[in-house]
Structures are given as structure tokens and as C-alpha cells.
């Protein structure tokens, strides 16, 4: 994390939906070609990759179904237990967090809803409201 990244948001798409991540948590974006699937793990786990000699789990943020193979990039982010990856389709850009505004029911960028990604929630998703 660089001090210059504070207050910036990385925008990217997964399954056509716009997502954002705090640049302060972003390590890098790499090609996901060497992903190893791991059976007997939750559906949201796409597999693992080797990064700088360590095993890094890669997650999917799609709302339903098994993680897709369409996510051909991996966004590496910092997590308290070590780096984690998120499968993504395409990087859109980097914007100031002041450009992401709160709407009635979602945060938005230029009028389009943005799903903000929190690394801790990828590893241990919050229990949905009943």
C-alpha cells in the first residue's frame, strides 16, 4: 500500500456489474491463468494461485452459482491473514473516492451502482438479513 493510494478507488467489472475496491488494500492485478481449483471448498472459492512463493486463495464475488471461469484476472488485496485474490473480468480505472457517491439504496459512480469489495467479507461473508 502506498500513501499516494489513500482516498482512491479501483473500479472493475465482474459479470457486467461495476465493483470498487479501496486502493489502500490493493496489491496488484495479475493474470489468472495459473489458478488451481480446490475441491471441498465453498462455492465462492475459485482456487489458489502462487504469488511470491505463497499460496493465495482466490475468491469470486458473484452472488450466486459456482465461481465462473470468465474472471480471467485476479485482483490481489491485503487481508489480515495474508494476501487474497478476487477473480475479475476487467479493470475500468482508478478514481477519487469523492467521485463515489451514496444514493438512495447503493453507492454510485456516474449514476451506476457500485458494489464495494471488502476483503474480510470475501473470506467470511456476513450472514444475510432474514
Amino acid at each position, binding site marked *: 500500500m502506498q500513501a499516494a493510494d489513500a482516498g482512491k478507488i479501483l473500479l472493475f467489472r465482474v459479470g457486467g456489474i461495476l465493483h470498487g475496491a479501496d486502493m489502500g488494500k490493493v496489491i496488484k492485478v495479475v493474470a489468472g491463468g495459473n489458478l488451481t481449483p*480446490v475441491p471441498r471448498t465453498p462455492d465462492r472459492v475459485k482456487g489458489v494461485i502462487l504469488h511470491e512463493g*505463497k*499460496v493465495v486463495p482466490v475468491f469470486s464475488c458473484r452472488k450466486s452459482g459456482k465461481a465462473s471461469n470468465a474472471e480471467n484476472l485476479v485482483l490481489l488485496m491485503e487481508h489480515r491473514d495474508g494476501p487474497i485474490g478476487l477473480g475479475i473480468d476487467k479493470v475500468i480505472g482508478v478514481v477519487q473516492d469523492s467521485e463515489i457517491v451514496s444514493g438512495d439504496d447503493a453507492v454510485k459512480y456516474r449514476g451506476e451502482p457500485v458494489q464495494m469489495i471488502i476483503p474480510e467479507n470475501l473470506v467470511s461473508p456476513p450472514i444475510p438479513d432474514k
Partner: protein
Amino acid sequence: MGALEPEKFARAIDGREGLILFFKVAGLSYGLRLTNVIRIDEIETPASSITLPDEKVIKCINLRRFFGAEGNGSENGKGIVIIFESEDGQFGLLADAVDEVVPALEASELMWPPQLKGEGAKIFGGFFRRRERLVPAVNASAVREAALPEGL
């Protein structure tokens, strides 16, 4: 049931403490140390039990089903059974094919990442690093513990 490439595996089993077996299940590679492996045989049809040359019948776990893969065997219908000796007796793991058997020095072992919770952490002790790729390291005893109650 016929022995698989006897020369290769005789050599492997003799020095099994320092060797790693890589094998395929549904197109994906897995690895395990040959410690506690007593034989590896080719089989014609995957079954829930097999009869050994000494007439002993042992239970087998179909890794395709255990790993949630489709189909019941490899493309040609044949497969392999990896037979283990454990404190609770012998058991087999059914897989599709042997990839290779290599000295442990050629495949460093990496820990399971703490960020990844769940059952997989028991089933796979970690990963082998082989040619810059990660291969899940199968813990055969944990597979047996998890699979036999499920009837796999």
C-alpha cells in the same frame, strides 16, 4: 486388476518416504507422499471395494465423487487404485491415472493458506509446488475420515 508399470512403482515403493505421487482426477492434478502407500494398481471399473491378490477385500473411495466431479471414471473407463495402510486397516483411493512419481526435492510443499477456511483445510494438508504450479496435497487419512460416512 493388474499391477501398474511394475518397474517404475517397485522403485517408487522401495524408497517411498522421499517420493511424491502426482495423479489425475477429472483432469486436475493432485499429489500425495508415498508414505503408507502399499501398492498402486490399474483397475477396469471403479468400485466401492476391491479384492487384493491375497483375497482381502478393502473399501475404496472414489475421488471423482468425493471431489464433486462429473462422471464415474476416466475417459477410457479405466482408473487406478492407490492402496494405503493405516492404523484402522487398508483402504483405497480411486483416481483416473498416474501423472508422475518424483523425489520430494523436486516438489516443495507449501502450507494451506490460513485465509482459506473450511473442510478443504483438512482434506488437503497444503500444496506441492511443481513446475511453478500448485498441486493440492491430499491427506489420505482425512479423505477416508470424511468420505466413508458419506458412502463415497
